[in-house]
């Protein structure tokens, strides 16, 4: 019983992180309609920027966190402004945007390797503790924070999408760009804010992971793959489904360890991704029309 609870809690924690990544990614996909792989770079850069501000420059921790999140948002915005927007002007297909995003991801990730090196970096704000006991499993305070922060963010995101003017505008553009423009919504402005908000959320995920584990250059790609899988599994183009999908992947990975040798834990998300892309690309809750023929 204890193992099951532990796996469930681990799944919840991992799922929360993946859901954050999936939420940001899905927000961008729902409005901009293409696969933004470089989302992983927003993640990595945010974590490393925090490291830079806090561990290297020794700025106040909370200030560093705020700056890092803003930086992540701006980075996302920058990628859109400098690359994607220019490609959109040239009527680039989603495929070209995908390739460009792959290029951006590799470019930025390699930049991190050059600037910071390949070794693992520790942020060193939280001391590693044994954690508390809960229903026969162990959970640290940081891990509780991770779950709480993500839940709060999801609630905020939900309220944002449902109640605020911009949130509604985003849903309108996601639903039907042409009609949204007719009623006066600027799609460019929506794209911009989707990138800023989506990337900022990813940044928060990076900070949480960086505090819990460590920073390494490929963390962006790793988290992105799982978040992306979660978004696909849940149903791409729909933020709540993506969040659900993220949690599902978190659970799948951790329960999977029960059945498979632990080395395969990473492979679980990839195999799920492969199966879904091939047999159910619209995800569990998505709409069929997103698959091109």
């Amino acid at each position, binding site marked *: 019983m204890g193992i099951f609870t532990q796996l469930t809690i681990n799944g919840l924690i991992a799922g929360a992180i993946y859901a954050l990544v999936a939420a940001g990614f899905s927000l961008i996909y729902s409005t901009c309609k293409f696969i933004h792989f470089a989302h992983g770079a927003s993640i990595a850069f945010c974590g490393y920027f925090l490291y830079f501000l806090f561990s290297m420059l020794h700025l106040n921790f909370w200030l560093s966190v705020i700056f890092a999140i803003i930086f992540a948002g701006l980075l996302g915005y920058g990628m859109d402004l400098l690359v994607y927007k220019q490609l959109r002007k040239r009527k680039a297909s989603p495929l070209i945007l995908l*390739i460009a995003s792959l290029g951006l991801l590799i470019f930025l990730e390699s930049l991190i390797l050059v600037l910071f090196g*390949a070794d693992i970096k520790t942020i060193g704000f939280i001391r590693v503790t044994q954690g508390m006991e809960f229903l026969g499993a162990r959970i640290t305070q940081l891990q509780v924070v991770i779950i709480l922060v993500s839940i709060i963010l999801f609630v905020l995101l939900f309220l944002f999408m449902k109640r605020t003017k911009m949130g509604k505008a985003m849903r309108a553009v996601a639903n039907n760009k042409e009609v949204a423009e007719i009623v006066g919504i600027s799609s460019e402005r929506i794209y911009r804010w989707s990138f800023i908000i989506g990337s900022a959320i990813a940044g928060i995920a990076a900070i949480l992971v960086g505090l819990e584990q460590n920073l390494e250059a490929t963390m962006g790609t790793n988290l992105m793959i799982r978040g992306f899988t979660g978004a696909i599994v849940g149903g791409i183009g729909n933020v709540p489904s993506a969040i659900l999908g993220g949690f599902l992947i978190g659970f799948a990975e951790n329960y999977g360890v029960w059945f498979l040798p632990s*080395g395969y834990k990473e492979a679980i998300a990839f195999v799920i991704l492969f199966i879904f892309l*091939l047999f159910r690309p619209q995800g569990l809750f998505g709409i069929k029309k997103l*698959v*091109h023929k």
Partner: protein
Amino acid sequence: MIEAYIIHLLILICIFIILSISLQLSIGFAGLLSLAHIAFYCIGAYTSALLALAGVPFWICIVLAGISAMIFGFLLSIPTNKLKGDYLALATLAFHIVVYAVALNWTGLTRGPLGLPGIPRPSIFGFVFSGNLSFLILTFIIMLICYFIAKLIISSPFGKALGAIRDDELSTKVLGKNTFKMKTYALGISALIAGIAGSLYAHYITFIDPSSFHLMQMVPILAIVIIAGLASLRGTIIVSIILVLLPEPLRFIGFPSSMVGPMRQIIYALILILILLYKPKGLFGKIKLG
């Protein structure tokens, strides 16, 4: 010293040319944007290495490496047949990731991150290609063979029909052609060539581990094909040579060797993005992507 360095570069160039030709065949000539080719490269490398370590003669190793990659190419074609554009790219990407994960985790077969050391240099009729110069000649000849295979296919009516599938698959179907069968062959042969490149790589470095087949390795090859432009075999070769040589001066400027790898990727990724923005047909291509 310089001689050894030049020979090493030339060997790498030949291997890159073979890999890029395989990708160009798939993307430029058949219109299948595959991100799976490093997976085929990986399958070829491991097949060849494992066979060679079991004592199988080289020429059988390389042929079976190509064939095993080709079989996976055929298999991949089945579920991806109806996918287009970015969804196809994603599915092939997922395939790559699965292959990479298997290489990393099926330690019983691949020894995982420890890799496979001690892969013997090729030996044909008793002659061992232990010197790099002889290996270069072998690689060059195999590269020429791969080039001619590609050229034969492309200039044949089959190749033209592949171009038709790339331009408009529905029209091709409606003209009575079984496009699924043709796309399967295209992906299969393309995978075969990538597998051969993998075998050469394994027997050159004599050691392989999963890190040589990480997704990052896809970027130089993809960059070559897109920078060269779609459907230009000649351009693919020229750009392969340029892109392998371009980052080399970095070694001499004084960067620590650990940085050279990432800097190469930065250069490739940057040029790729610039080409997409300002010259989407590439340098030698006549067809726009997508």
